[in-house]
């Protein structure tokens, strides 16, 4: 006897609308259906209607928390299209702000994750320390969340000695705090009970399902765009790729804590070895890009982020495509939520497993065709949609 339990579209464990249809037998989950298309914002289409410098600010707003990664990816994409490269000082400054935003994103996730698990004390502590990072972002870029720091051809502001010394103090403070949190999580039996052995994802499954980011590294696979395809001076800045071989939610927490340490080290190294010179190329406020296509990859806090653009020689992109890390990770959630053999998933594990991928649904919507008259909904594949578009003579 099996039941279907809906979790969502609005539910206390979700930050954003997401529908999980769980098929349960008793307490065990045997099947799951995920529907992400509750937020469709039409950003890709809107990017085609804006000039390249204007599109940057829209691309930045795809996601609030990884705005730095999105704006960096957009800038790299357009710079590649134009055949230009940011000056070395700009690359290092980009790394500093990118890693700051990674620290802030990971601390936010850690706090929120323990909040969903019911450990409010750590939630408060993590978010208190996150404020220090946010203050530094505000000091460097002019805003707490939407930084608008990267521009095509460099960065907007240079670093001052005052910011430099404040950053170093913040790094010292945060290192001490993170050491304490790591010890606290390792020694807290109530947390370990909720994390260890929950949401198992074997390395071969993780690769097969196209998982990216800290989620993949927690399954013991060494994959990081910063290492595989250095995009902003990462070949000069030393860092370790943190992996964990427990393949469960505990590993996901530990990978992110380890990455916070690595990011802090990277910021300190970049501050010490900051090249002198220009931090921004002179770019006109309006320009045309040559005909061509370009693809850029960035390691966002949640995983590999891909931007792809086609230019037809005009002032706007002909087509712009964004692949966000959450979309890549959602397939593995469906796999992790299914009980098989001696691997059992209970309804109480859903927040831990779903939270483990750091879901950010608003960047993820897919195409669903809804027929109002027949009251049917079906999800289409890309090939189907292309055929449909060709038949109707619509440009995709």
């Amino acid at each position: 006897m099996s039941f279907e339990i809906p979790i969502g579209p609005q539910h206390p464990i979700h930050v954003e609308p997401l529908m999980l249809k769980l098929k349960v037998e008793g307490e065990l989950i045997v099947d799951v259906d995920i529907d992400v298309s509750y937020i469709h914002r039409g950003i890709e289409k809107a990017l085609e209607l804006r000039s390249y410098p204007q599109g940057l600010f829209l691309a930045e707003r795809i996601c609030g928390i990884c705005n730095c990664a999105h704006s960096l990816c957009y800038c790299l994409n357009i710079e590649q299209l134009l055949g230009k490269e940011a000056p070395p000082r700009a690359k290092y400054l980009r790394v500093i702000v990118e890693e700051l935003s990674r620290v802030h994103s990971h601390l936010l996730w850690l706090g929120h994750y323990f909040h969903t698990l019911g450990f409010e004390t750590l939630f408060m502590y993590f978010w208190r320390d996150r404020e220090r990072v946010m203050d530094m972002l505000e000091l460097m870029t002019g805003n707490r969340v939407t930084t608008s720091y990267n521009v095509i051809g460099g960065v907007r502001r240079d670093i001052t000695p005052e910011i430099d010394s404040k950053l170093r103090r913040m790094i010292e403070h945060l290192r001490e705090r993170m050491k304490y949190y790591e010890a606290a999580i390792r020694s807290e039996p109530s947390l370990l009970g909720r994390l260890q052995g929950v949401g198992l994802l074997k390395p071969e499954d993780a690769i097969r399902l196209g998982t990216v980011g800290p989620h993949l590294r927690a399954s013991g696979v060494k994959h990081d765009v910063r290492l595989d395809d250095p995009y902003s001076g990462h070949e000069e800045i030393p860092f370790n790729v943190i992996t964990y071989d427990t393949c469960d939610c505990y590993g996901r927490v530990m990978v992110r804590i380890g990455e916070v340490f690595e990011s802090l080290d990277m910021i300190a190294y970049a501050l010490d070895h900051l090249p002198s010179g220009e931090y921004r190329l002179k770019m006109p406020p309006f320009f045309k890009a040559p005909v061509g296509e370009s693809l850029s990859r960035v390691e966002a806090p949640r995983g590999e982020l891909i931007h792809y653009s086609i230019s037809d020689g005009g002032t706007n992109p002909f087509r712009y495509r964004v692949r966000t890390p959450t979309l890549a990770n959602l397939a593995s959630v469906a796999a992790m939520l299914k009980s098989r053999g001696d691997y059992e998933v209970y309804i109480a594990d859903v927040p831990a497993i779903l939270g483990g991928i750091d879901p950010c649904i608003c960047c993820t919507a897919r195409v669903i065709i809804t027929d109002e008259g027949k009251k049917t909904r079906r999800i289409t594949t890309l090939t189907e949609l292309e055929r449909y578009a060709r038949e109707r003579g619509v440009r995709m």
Partner: protein
Amino acid sequence: MKAPGYIFAEALRNLIKKRATVLYPYREVEKIHLPDGFRGKIEFDRPKCIGCQMCFRVCPAKAIEIIEDERGKRPIFLIYRCIYCGQCAEVCPTKAITLGKVFENVALRKEELEVR
């Protein structure tokens, strides 16, 4: 493995620490420290404006409209559409536009959110 309650000592220590939050809208507003480069509400210096309309052309949010007054063409800034990206301030040839430190933009009428 240690006994539960590793965090308890830290929790006790926090009891005697100062409060981390600010009682923002009612008291302690002066404790909110905004850095110098903060991007807040636009401030416009009319005498410096030469009416080149560059701000209007670069604005990604269409938050700038051009009108004519007795001294020629000039922009009005619609703060309810502004995304605080700072493109207009960057492109302005005479630095007539700056982004100030006002961040509380709530009003009952639309006109209050227009910078003229």
